[in-house]
C-alpha cells in the first residue's frame, strides 16, 4: 500500500513535468468556467426576458383601458388583450440548458383558438442553435472524455516506449499496482476538476441543496469513471501510444458522434411525428368554416360541450362575440386528436431515445443531466399542457361575460387568471440514467480487468 502511494505521488511529479498536460488541464478548467458563465448568463437572460413580460402585458391593458374607457364588450377585450404563459427555469438549467433555446419559454396568448398560437417560435439565431450551447454539461459530456484520453492514452505505453518499464517491473511492484496508481492519480485529478467545476456552477446558479446535488455529482463521477474504464481496456491491450490515441479517439467519435447521429436517423424513421403543420392547417379550416356555417349549428355543437350556457339568448345578430369564440374553440376541439397525436409522437420519440441511450453513455448522461435540470422535451410538453389548462381557465373567465352579456370593467382585468409554470426535475429519468451508466461502467471495468488479467504486461 505504501508503494502504491509512492507511485501516486510520483505520478503528480510526472504530470507537473509534462507541460502540455498541465496546460491542457488548465484549459479545461478555464473552458469549464466559461461554460458555467455562459450557461448561467444565458439563463439569467431568459429569466430577464420572462421578467419583462408582465410589463408588456400591463402596457397592453393600459392601452385597452384607454381604448375602452367605459365597461366594454368582453369579446372586444378578449380579441385585443394579450397575456403570457411563462416557463420559468430551474436554477439547474444554467448547468445544462438542454432544449431551452430551441423550445420557446413563453407563449403569447389571446382568447382566440389555442392551436394557432401554441407553437409560435421565439426569436433565436438558427446558426447559434446549430452550434449548440457551451454550457457545463457540454464541457463535462464532450470535453472531459477528451481530457481523460489525453491523460491516459500513454498510461503505460509511454514507459514502455521510453524503455523505463523493464527497470520499473524489475522492482517488487506488480504491474497492477503501477497501473492502479497511475489511474488513481488521474481519476483524482479529473474528478477533482469535475467536482470543482460542478461546485462552482452550483454555487453560481444557486441551486437548492437537495438530493439532486448528489445525483448530478454521481452522474458526472460515474461518467468519468466510464471513460477511465475505456482507457483501462486500451491500456490492457498494450499497444503503442499512437495506436492507443487513435483507438480512444475512435471510441469517443463512436459514442459522441456516430451513435447519436445514427440514432437520430433511426428515431426519426421509427417514430415519424405527425406534422404539426397539418394540425394548424386543419384548425384554420375549421375556424374559418365557422363563419360560413349556420350559427345555430355552431352553437349547438358548442352547447354540447358547455351545457351550462345552453339557455342563453339565441343569436340573431350578424356578428356576436360569443359565437365567434364558440367556433374558435370548436376549431381547437376538431384538431384535438391531431394535437394529442403530435405531442404523443414527440414523447414517444423521446422515450425511444431513453430506451436506446444505453448505446452511448454520452447520450445517457446528456439526457439524464437535462432531465435533472428540467430542460428537455418532456418538460416543454408539460409546459404546453399547462398552457392548454391556462387557456381553458381564460375561456372559463371570459365565458360568463360573453354569455351573460356582462360588460367587462377596468377592475376585471386584474381578476383575470394568470399563468406561471416552473420546470420540475425529471428525477426518475435521471436516476434510471445513473443505473444504466453504472451498468455500462461496470461492463467496461470488468472487460478491462479481464483483459488485464489475461494479458500479462510486457515490459518491452
Amino acid at each position, binding site marked *: 500500500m505504501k508503494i502504491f502511494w509512492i507511485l501516486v505521488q510520483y505520478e503528480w511529479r510526472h504530470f507537473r513535468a509534462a507541460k502540455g498536460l498541465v496546460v491542457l488541464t488548465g484549459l479545461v478548467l478555464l473552458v469549464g468556467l466559461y461554460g458555467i458563465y455562459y450557461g448561467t448568463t444565458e439563463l439569467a437572460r431568459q429569466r430577464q426576458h420572462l421578467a419583462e413580460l408582465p410589463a408588456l402585458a400591463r402596457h397592453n391593458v393600459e392601452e385597452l383601458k384607454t381604448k375602452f374607457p367605459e365597461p366594454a364588450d368582453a369579446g372586444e377585450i378578449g380579441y385585443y388583450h394579450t397575456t403570457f404563459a411563462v416557463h420559468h427555469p430551474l436554477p439547474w438549467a444554467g448547468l445544462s440548458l438542454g432544449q431551452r433555446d430551441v423550445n420557446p419559454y413563453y407563449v403569447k396568448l389571446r382568447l382566440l383558438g389555442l392551436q394557432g398560437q401554441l407553437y409560435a417560435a421565439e426569436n433565436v439565431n438558427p446558426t447559434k442553435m446549430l452550434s449548440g450551447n457551451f454550457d457545463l454539461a457540454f464541457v463535462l459530456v464532450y*470535453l472531459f472524455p477528451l481530457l481523460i484520453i489525453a491523460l491516459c492514452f500513454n498510461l503505460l505505453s509511454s514507459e514502455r516506449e521510453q524503455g523505463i518499464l523493464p527497470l520499473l517491473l524489475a522492482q517488487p511492484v506488480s504491474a497492477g499496482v503501477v497501473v492502479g496508481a497511475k489511474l488513481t492519480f488521474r481519476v483524482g485529478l479529473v474528478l477533482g476538476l469535475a467536482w470543482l467545476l460542478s461546485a462552482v456552477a452550483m454555487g453560481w446558479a444557486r441551486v437548492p441543496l437537495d438530493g439532486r446535488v448528489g445525483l448530478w455529482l454521481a452522474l458526472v463521477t460515474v461518467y468519468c469513471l466510464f471513460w477511465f474504464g475505456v482507457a483501462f481496456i486500451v491500456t490492457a491491450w498494450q499497444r503503442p501510444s499512437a495506436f492507443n490515441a487513435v483507438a480512444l479517439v475512435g471510441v469517443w467519435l463512436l459514442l459522441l458522434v456516430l451513435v447519436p447521429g445514427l440514432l437520430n436517423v433511426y*428515431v426519426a424513421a421509427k417514430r415519424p411525428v405527425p406534422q404539426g403543420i397539418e394540425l394548424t392547417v386543419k384548425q384554420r379550416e375549421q375556424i374559418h368554416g365557422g363563419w360560413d356555417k349556420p350559427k345555430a349549428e355552431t352553437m349547438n355543437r358548442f352547447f354540447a360541450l358547455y351545457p351550462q350556457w345552453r339557455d342563453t339568448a339565441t343569436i340573431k345578430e350578424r356578428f356576436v362575440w360569443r359565437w365567434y369564440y364558440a367556433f374558435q374553440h370548436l376549431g381547437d376541439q376538431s384538431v384535438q386528436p391531431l394535437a394529442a397525436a403530435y405531442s404523443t409522437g414527440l414523447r414517444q420519440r423521446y422515450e425511444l431515445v431513453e430506451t436506446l441511450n444505453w448505446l452511448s453513455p454520452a447520450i445517457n448522461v446528456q439526457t439524464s443531466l437535462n432531465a435533472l435540470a428540467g430542460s428537455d422535451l418532456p418538460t416543454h410538453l408539460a409546459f404546453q399542457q399547462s398552457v392548454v389548462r391556462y387557456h381553458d381557465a381564460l375561456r372559463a373567465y371570459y365565458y360568463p361575460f360573453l354569455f351573460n352579456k356582462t360588460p367587462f370593467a377596468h377592475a376585471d382585468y386584474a381578476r383575470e387568471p394568470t399563468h406561471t409554470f416552473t420546470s420540475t426535475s425529471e428525477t426518475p429519468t435521471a436516476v434510471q440514467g445513473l443505473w444504466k451508466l453504472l451498468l455500462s461502467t461496470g461492463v467496461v471495468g470488468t472487460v478491462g480487468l479481464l483483459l488485464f488479467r489475461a494479458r500479462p504486461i510486457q515490459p518491452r
Partner: protein
Amino acid sequence: MIQSIAQKEFISTLRDRRFVVLSGLLLALLLAATLVGRGSYRTLQHERMVAQQTVNEQFHNQPNRHPHRVAHYGSFAFRPRAGLSFLDAGLDSFTGASVFLEAHQQNSVNFSQAQQSGSLIRFGELTVAFVLQVLVPLLIVFLCFSAFTEERETGTLKLLLSQGVSMRRVAWGKIAGYGRAVALVVGPALALAAWLLFGEEEFAHNPDVWVRLALFVAGYAVYFFLWIVGAVVVSARQRHARSALVLLLGCWMLGCIILPKATANLGATLFPTITKAQMDADVHEAAQKGINGHDPQDQRSAALKANLLKQYGVDSEEKLPVSVGGLVMAESEAYTSKVYQQHFADLTRTYERQNAISNWAGLLNPYQAIRPLSMGLAGSDFAHYVHFQQAAESYRYQLVQRLNGLQASMGYGDKERKLDAATWQAIPTFAYQAPPVGWALGYLLLPALALLLWAVGLSWLGLKLIDNTPVV
C-alpha cells in the same frame, strides 16, 4: 520525382490495413449519409409540396366571402428545401418549415425539426457535410501524422534525401499521394450524389444546381488540401510520431468542436437578440403611435378620410365610390409593414453580427470557413433562410393589399356584402423561387477568401518551414 514519391505514398497507404479499414468505414458512412440525406430530403420536400398544394387549393376554393375574411383566412408559405441541402442540411433542422400568412401580423416560421426531437439532435446530425467537414480531417490526421516522423525514425528519410531529393519535394510528393488516397474515399460519395441529382427531373437541367455542386466539390478539395498540407508540415516539424498525432488531434478538436461553439455563443452574448414578444410590442407601438411617435393611427385614418372626401368632392362616406374601411386597412397595412420591415431588418442585422464573429473566425479556423461556404452553396444557410422569410412576407403583403384593394373597390357598406368565389381563383398563390448561385456567392466571399488564404498561406509558410527542418 514528386510523382514517384506520391505513387509510393499512395500505394503504401492502400496497403496499410488501418487505412483501408478506416476509409472503408468512412466511405460507407458517406454513402449512407448521402442516401439517408436524400431520403429525408425527399420526404420533407414531398410533405411540404403537398401541404403547399393543399393550402393553395383551399385558398382558391373559398366560397363567397368578404375580402377581409379572406385576408384573415390567409395562407401558408412552406419553405421548399434547396436542391443540394441533402448534402448539407445546414440550418434546415433548426429553422421552421412554414409560416402562416395573414392580415395585420407577421408570424414566426414554425415547426423546426429540432423542436420535434429531444436533446439528442444537439449531438449533431449525420450529414454528408458533417462527414466531410469533421470526419475526413480526422482521417487525414490519422493518415498523415507519421508522414515524416516514421521515415525519420526508420531512417528511410536520410536514404531518400541522399538520392538528391529536396525535403520540399518529398513533402509535395507526400501531399499528392495522400491527396489521391483521400480523393479515393470522398470521390465515390460525391459521384453518387451527382448521380442522384442527375436522376431528378427538377435538377437534371438546372445549371444553377450544377454550378453549386461544382463549387461545393471545389471548396472541399481546398479544405482537404489544407488539412493534408498542415498534417504533413506538423509531421515534419515534430520529432516523434506521438507528439505529431497529439498536436494534430488537439488542432482538430479545437477547430472542429470547441471554437465553432464558443464563437457562436460569444456572438450571441455580445449582440443580444430581442425577444419576439418585445419586438411585436415595439412594432405595435410604432404602428399605433407612428414611427416618430407623433403620428397616431387614428389621426392617420382621419386624415385619409378627410382627403378622400375632398378628392371626390363629397361630404359623407356614403357618397364615396370606394370603401373607406378598405383604404384605411390598406394604409394601416402599409404602415405596419414598413415598421415591421425596419424591426425585422434590425433583428436580421443582430443575427448577422452574431454570425459575423463566427465567420471571421474562419480566418483562424478553416472549419469555420468551409462550414458557411458549404451551407451557402447547399442553400441551407442563414442568408437563404432570410431570403425565404422575406419572400413570404412580400407575398403576404401583396396578398393582403390586393384583398384590401378589392375591399376598397366594393364601395360603401362593403361589410354587408361578399365577393364571388371566382375572385379568389384569380389570386396567385405563393411560389418560392430560391435565389441563384450568384446571389449566394455575395454572402460567401469571406469564407471562400479565408479558405484560399489558408491554403496558400499553409503551402507557402509550411513548406518554407519544412525546408528549414533538420533532417536528423
